[in-house]
């Protein structure tokens, strides 16, 4: 048994961390929220790295998920999940054009997309559309309602379900990175902040809350690896694995970001602090590519047989 990342995947993660940690940060999320500044790193900068096209270049979903986790740590946009889903749907797609897949409800990365995909009457279509956005809860997801204008049928409807699941796996991998980072920030603050003469992280009430969030992150990491592996190597397990990781990502990211706020006390729920920027991810991502209630229902339907 070797349920672990390979040396190559660890090197890939390290390279991705180098790039994303310089190219995006919660400050970019804040700027987008406050005055509609462009998202970071943005399509062009990500495309220059080649990370977006890992699947098209013969890499695995697990490879791409390792990158997604690093992107999630800094609230990067556009989503890695979107690149992955489109790569499965339309293997020769030009990902640098700005792509978005339209389901019911607002679509991920749609606000800046020029090429849209949708399933219409059992047929995969590709084409242009117009977008309208509401006031963003999390601006980094580029959400918009899409009205398709000119579309053309293309092959690939049979890949729709698989592409959706790959998207769920990658979105969960991004959430893993966001949750991991939220716990790190909370732990650091609990070491630094003093109350009643000692670090607040020495109090069990604070410590245990952070540990619960940490345990959640490690549980999520286990499912994120398994689900990505299943997408690559064992498609029969993917429906269960994708639903489980989709549901757990929502639960764990919410717990991690709400813990981050709570551990910070008063500063934690100010506009000025970054905690809410991570929290916004949690509150939006749970609804993307199907919601957590649906995902847990799927886990039960597939397992109660």
């Amino acid at each position: 048994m070797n349920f672990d990342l390979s040396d190559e995947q660890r090197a890939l993660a390290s390279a991705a961390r180098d790039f994303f940690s310089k190219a995006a940060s919660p400050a970019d999320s804040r700027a987008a929220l406050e005055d509609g500044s462009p998202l970071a790193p943005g399509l062009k900068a990500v495309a220059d790295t080649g990370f977006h096209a890992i699947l098209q270049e013969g890499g695995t979903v697990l490879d791409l998920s390792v990158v997604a986790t690093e992107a999630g740590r800094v609230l990067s946009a556009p989503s890695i999940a979107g690149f992955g889903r489109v790569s499965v749907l339309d293997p020769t797609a030009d990902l640098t054009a700005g792509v978005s897949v339209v389901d019911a409800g607002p679509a991920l990365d749609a606000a800046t997309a020029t090429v849209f995909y949708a399933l219409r009457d059992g047929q995969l279509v590709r084409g242009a559309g117009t977008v309208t956005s509401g006031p963003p809860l999390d601006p980094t997801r580029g959400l918009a309602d899409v009205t398709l204008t000119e579309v053309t049928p293309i092959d690939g409807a049979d890949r729709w379900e698989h592409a959706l699941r790959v998207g769920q796996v990658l979105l969960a991998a991004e959430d893993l990175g966001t949750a991991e980072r939220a716990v790190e920030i909370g732990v650091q603050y609990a070491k630094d902040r003093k109350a009643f003469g000692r670090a607040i992280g020495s109090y069990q009430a604070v410590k245990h809350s952070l540990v619960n969030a940490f345990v959640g992150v490690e549980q999520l990491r286990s499912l994120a690896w398994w689900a990505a592996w299943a997408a690559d190597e064992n498609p029969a397990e993917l429906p269960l694995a994708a639903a489980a990781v989709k549901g757990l990502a929502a639960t764990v990211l919410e717990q991690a970001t709400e813990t981050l706020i709570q551990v910070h006390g008063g500063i934690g729920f100010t506009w000025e602090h970054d905690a809410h920027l991570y929290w916004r991810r949690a509150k939006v991502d749970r609804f993307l590519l199907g919601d957590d209630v649906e995902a847990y229902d799927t886990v039960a339907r597939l397992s109660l047989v």
Partner: protein
Amino acid sequence: MNFDDTPEEAAYREQVRTYIADHRDQLISVGDGARREGDLTRARESQRVMYEGGYVGITWPKDVGGQGGSPMQQAIVDQELGKAGVPGHVGLIGIGMCGPTVISHGSDDQKQRYLKRLLSCEDIWCQLFSEPASGSDLAALRTRAVREGDSWRINGQKVWTTLAQYADYGILLTRTDPTLAKHKGLTMFVVDMKAPGVTVRPLRQMSGSAEFNEVFFDDVIVHDSERLGEVNDGWRVGLTTLMSERLTLGGGGGEMGISGGTAASFIASQIGSLSEDRQALVRQDFGRVWTQLLATRYTGYRLLSAISKGAMPGPEASAGKLAGTKAGRQLADLAVRVSGDGGVWFEGPWQASQAGLPGLAIAGGTDEVLRNVIGERVLGLPPEPRADKGLSFEESVKL
């Protein structure tokens, strides 16, 4: 990444599987009561058969009767026994905890006298650590050993002692110098459980069954040659035992927590009789619990992969225990919940599970202690200040 055995592991697994199949009728089964009946003949026989095949004490050194094998081989044997429906050996506490302590700290004479008999189940061992007044704070234990010439006189009480009712020997942690700090004045002994003054009483749990015992020591005499390690160095000796426990309980089978398959089948068989609204609620609860159990399983595989590469499980292994016991409790509760009107009677397997599972969040380190361990050793958070710091044991008990 893969979930396959290496060629060496696959070959070993095949060898183990064949041996178990060839001897299956001599091995006991989960649920057949062989470990709980007063007559342990079949349970002892079961372990002896595995010992004769070379599958007990796998990670022990060869010169004390072990196989000199790897933790991964141990995990493979545990998995194959599990698949064949064979429960843990009746000598588990000895194999996993007492034996390794004797190997590390015993005299040559003790090793000669005890270890092979322990592996072959001629002797059953127990571990005498916890006390009524010292559970999580183990080093606060009060059982006294007072030197009398070549011997020690022991008085006190232990509790939560698994298998004490059957045990021939135990490793016993005592206080030998109360004027030192609580960790400094402890000494470990091997004690003959049949010696005069040793009384074992079953301890009945909230589930109604008695899986543990209380053990009383009234003027029990132990010869100094039965001491394990130096006088007043018992805490360090005990750490060997507890680290072995982590490997035994945390890293062994790779299927940490409750596998839950039976509960899922039961819930699946019941759900159709509920209203549609209720079915949706049960599915929502079940989906959340099952997802946690899946995650616990794959967290266990990460641990097993680390063992396979030769690493020892660290404190992060506790993460799986925390998540797994919580989900296990929720699953048992859900099984009771879908039982319908029968849910108010204490009958059927899920009531017993429901009443037994709270203990899992306490035994082998409470959830709170595990969270402290993870918080302090993995996340690096500072410990809670200790009111007894710098005090001798005598002074600390007056706090």
